């Protein structure tokens, strides 16, 4: 299976001598769901933003579908979609207009754009509400719209920061199922980040645990549970953090 994402020693410092991400390295295979987990300020969002070409690394590089985020950011953006945490949508547009606008940024072909929109409409399940202004949507509805937007183009890599934030249990469950299904059926890869260990345990194939800008450990869920003699991912996380603090 080919690698969709290869991260090699990625670092970022906003202030002198303070590294928000410190030599982070990992990879994501085709059709794989990889999750970065860690507490607030661990460097998850910084890492994700660098891979999404939004901010420039101060060290290292990452290849998305073989394209460097530093030297070929435009090529990288053609292969990814990014869903930021707490992202909004344009309130003056209707759901449909929003999807049309976003589809138009990915393709100039009208028929392809229509296919994207139809797929998103089907995934978000908003039905006739798509013809209403986004300003009238609930937080959960906006999140569903944005999620469907992020997968409608079937990118090689969909990057999602706190994918289910703002969604109730039922909706969150639906989204997790949807991510799993898309990865399996279309071969899309996902890079997720979350505080919600339960969610990650359910949805991910592999995880990377981050604290204080460092990627401490990566591995499959079962593999890590076994390695740290833990009952669930939360316990793995706790032990990794304690182990590294003791060191």
């Amino acid at each position, binding site marked *: 299976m080919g690698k969709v994402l290869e991260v090699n020693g990625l670092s970022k410092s*906003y202030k002198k001598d303070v590294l*928000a991400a410190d030599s982070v390295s990992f990879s994501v295979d085709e059709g794989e769901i990889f999750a970065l987990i860690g507490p607030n*300020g661990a*460097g998850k*969002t*910084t890492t994700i*933003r660098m891979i*999404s*070409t*939004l*901010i*420039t690394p101060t060290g290292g590089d990452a290849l998305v579908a073989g394209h460097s985020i530093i030297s070929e950011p*435009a090529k990288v*953006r*053609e292969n*990814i*979609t*990014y*869903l*930021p945490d*707490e*992202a*909004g*949508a*344009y*309130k*003056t*547009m209707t759901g449909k*207009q929003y999807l049309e*606008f*976003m589809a*138009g*940024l*990915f393709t*100039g072909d009208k028929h392809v754009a229509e296919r994207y929109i139809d797929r998103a409409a089907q995934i978000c399940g908003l039905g006739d509400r798509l013809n209403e202004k986004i300003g009238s949507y609930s937080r959960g509805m906006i999140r569903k719209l*944005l999620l469907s937007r992020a997968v409608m183009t079937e990118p090689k890599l969909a990057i999602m920061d706190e994918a289910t934030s703002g969604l109730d249990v039922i909706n969150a469950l639906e989204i997790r199922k949807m991510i799993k299904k898309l990865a399996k059926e279309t071969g899309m890869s996902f890079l997720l980040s979350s505080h919600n260990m339960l969610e990650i345990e359910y949805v991910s194939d592999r995880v990377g645990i981050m604290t204080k800008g460092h990627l401490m450990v990566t591995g499959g869920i079962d593999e890590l549970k076994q390695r740290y003699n833990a009952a669930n991912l939360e316990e793995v996380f706790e032990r990794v953090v304690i182990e590294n603090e003791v060191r």
Partner: protein
Amino acid sequence: MRFGNLLKKELRELITPQALVSMGAMLLLFIFLGQMLGDFTDSMEDISSATICVQDKTAFVDDILASLKEENIEVNQVELTSEDYAAELDRLELDNLVIIPAGFTDSVLVNKEPASLKIVSKVAGGGMISTAQTMSATEVIDAIEKAAEDSILLESYGITPEEIERIKAPVNTTEISVLNGKSAEVATEELSAVLMMQSMVVPIALFFMVMMASQMIMTAISTEKIDKTLETLLSTPVSRLSILGAKMLAAVISALLNAVVMMIGMVFYVGGMLGSAGEEMMNMAVAGQEVSASADGVMSAMEAMGELGMSISVGSYVLFGIQIFISVMIALAISLLLGAMATDIKSVQTLTMPIMLVTMIPFFVTMFADLNTMSTVPKLIMYAIPFTHAYTAMNNLVFGHTALFWGGLVYQLVFFAVCMFLAVRLFTTDKIFTMSYQTGAGKGKKGLIKQ
């Protein structure tokens, strides 16, 4: 294609139905105000008819009424049935009435004493239009007085109307205005009025355009940041410069639309206020057309401007247009930098202040003062503000101060290049995400949004 998609989205956000309604409301307000003030002006001038009650039926009074008709005042004669003026005005459905009482002729011609006239007016309210009603009746009284005066001078002293004219206007003045080493037969006051019109119309439009464009681009950028749509947008396969360009172009289009509506409103306002004369003046000021000399042979202000070398060529208009465009672009670039710092709506309002100040200060200073007569430091401060050059451009062109005009244009171009460089740099680096200005506790603090 993708740029078109972006531009469409930006325009849809800026030109909303609400924005169109407020533009329409503004236009209606201007038309309404102009019409209202125009009504007042018209009623001031409207002495074309007069209601008179003649209680002294003599040939002398008949002559006076005939002379009023010669002055194109239509006389409407009425009879009173009582001394109750309030009831009489109500019965006759009049706002005012002039009464020539019995014995008027005897007082003037026989007793040679001041005769009595009565003017009865309804107090309609405190507004300007109700004052104008009384004033129009007073004008009729003046006309009657003049007719009586002429009759006395002719009958008692044998002075003819021609001689009266000569006595009343013994001197004929010819005003000559001198400028740029040339002279023209025109009143300086008249020339100044046209110049003021000409140099005020465009700055007003520019002022509104700069203000609107700034606010629009600031809102456009800050809303993207506040609503957290910017990150999604910047992660799509569209170049950041296209996103920036679409935002700026949409703001220019929208500001232009607003400025056009504002200008149409102003034309209606001034046109309505001054009547047909004002409209003509306004058209002249806007189009800079030359008009033919007026009937009495006195040179028109626009003709005089041509003679004095003050008329503006098409080339100058093009240069002026370029300067206005650059001014708007400078405002957009500065607003873009400021808007990118906003983290909430409150900070957007605070950040709008600097751009408002640098637009307003030169607008008012150049309207009331001459920069060339200022002392060095204030003059340099004023010239350092790029918008000053746009406000003074028209006068610099008219008065032939080409060095000042070109200097201003070059300064604006350099200023724009620097602002644009900073804006592009901001948009193509991490700074677009990390720069922030927070109101309240974290005021003025440059910080990271999220790491």
